[in-house]
């Protein structure tokens, strides 16, 4: 019997190694796998490359990874939020490398990784500082930039519901990077609020099929309150909201 359910977030993350590239889902405060990030901090892996849309907020989650000196490099599209001071300090001190990627290119590079694409050309960033030192080519009269796939060793994603085969569904805009990241990593770990029996998810509506998912771990449901982005402590870890 195939059973991808992990008994705990600790067990799910036990084999994350130093130096790993970790794709972390979430956009602002939605879709952030808060419990998995907290468990990654407790697990102790260091020298990590973190791929996330943002750069953490407040004191917990990704921000705490920076504070603890666990991150060597951040690959990110928008690291300048009100509350990303731990990243900013580490960056200004030269402790963290930043690779800034346009959001769509970030997403597409992971899609390419998941789909086995060797590289692709995109008009995004052509003629800008973010295309410096990159190969370019004019295709159909349009300047384009060569971009390479972005593979993860591990992906941490938040879904709403899953089953023991790893099939996932999400909730509202919390879906964001989840499905793409799930396809782009060697090991994908999904946290869910609910585990259902096989057949409990409508096959027509499954968003991430289980082939992209290595482990599923259930976490306690939290309220879905929204808090302002500037202090989105919930954004990265529910603990801080309390």
């Amino acid at each position, binding site marked *: 019997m195939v059973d991808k359910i992990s008994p705990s977030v600790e067990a799910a993350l036990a084999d994350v190694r130093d130096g790993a590239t970790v794709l972390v889902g979430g*956009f602002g*405060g939605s879709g952030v796998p808060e419990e998995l990030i907290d468990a990654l901090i407790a697990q102790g892996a260091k020298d990590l490359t973190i791929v996330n849309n943002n750069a953490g907020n407040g004191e917990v989650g990704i921000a705490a990874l920076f504070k603890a000196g666990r991150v060597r490099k951040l690959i990110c599209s928008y690291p300048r939020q009100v509350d990303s001071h731990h990243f*900013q300090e580490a960056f200004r001190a030269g402790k963290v490398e930043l690779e800034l990627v346009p*959001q*769509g290119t970030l997403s597409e590079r992971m899609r390419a990784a998941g789909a086995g694409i060797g590289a692709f050309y995109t008009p*995004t960033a*052509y003629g800008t500082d*973010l295309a410096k030192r990159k190969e370019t080519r004019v295709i159909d009269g349009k300047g384009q930039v060569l971009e390479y796939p972005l593979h993860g060793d591990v992906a941490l994603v938040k879904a709403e519901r899953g089953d023991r085969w790893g099939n996932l569904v999400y909730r509202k805009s919390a879906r*964001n990077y989840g499905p*793409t990241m799930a396809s782009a990593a060697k090991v994908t770990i999904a946290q869910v609020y609910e585990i259902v029996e096989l057949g409990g998810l409508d096959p027509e509506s499954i968003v991430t099929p289980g082939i992209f998912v290595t482990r599923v771990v259930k976490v306690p449901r939290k309220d879905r309150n929204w808090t302002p982005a500037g202090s989105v402590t919930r954004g990265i870890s529910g603990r801080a909201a309390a």
Partner: protein
Amino acid sequence: MSYAKLTRDEIARRIALDIPEGSYVNLGIGMPTLVGNHLPKDREIFLHSENGILGMGPAPAKGEEDGDLINAGKEPVTLLTGGAYFHHTDSFAMMRGGHLDIAVLGAFQVSVSGDLANWHTGGDAIPAVGGAMDLAVGAKNVWVMMEHLTKEGASKIVDRCSYPLTGVGVVKRVYTDLAVIEVTPRGLVAGRLVQGLAFEELRRLTGVPLSLSEARAAA
């Protein structure tokens, strides 16, 4: 002659009234978000948010906010009946693949050839780009909404952008608090000047070659 600049809401209203029914539209973070408040009630217009929403509705009532339903500015929003959720790569396929009819973006500067600078002021600031470059190259029409002049009185419409570029030759139209300016192959064409503003005065303030739209000149 004296003239009154448009308020941000007045610019937003102009833009909203120019959006045809059935358009798929992305409103950038900041000032362009105001456009959503002025969309005519009798038109169906689809608002897109890059984090995976089409058919985005207005802000929820206080107490009804849902942490799983936010816009690109990370503010709580709602979904209209008939709206859809999708993942990031699909969302950016809509943006990069030419499926959006209009993107309304803020800007630091726009050049005479339609170059856009809106993501980074350079210098010491930590760079952050988000989806700006994707929208700039991907939307069928990029409209800029900005004040015409900086606080120091310098024109934000320039010969060449001094700030880092977001996209090259991408802007089609600029809505400012003084006028609406089209970026055309034969240069910038101004129209809809605010009441009391003479074209010569607008040209002086703008400081780059500018012509008056024929419609306006004939009026």
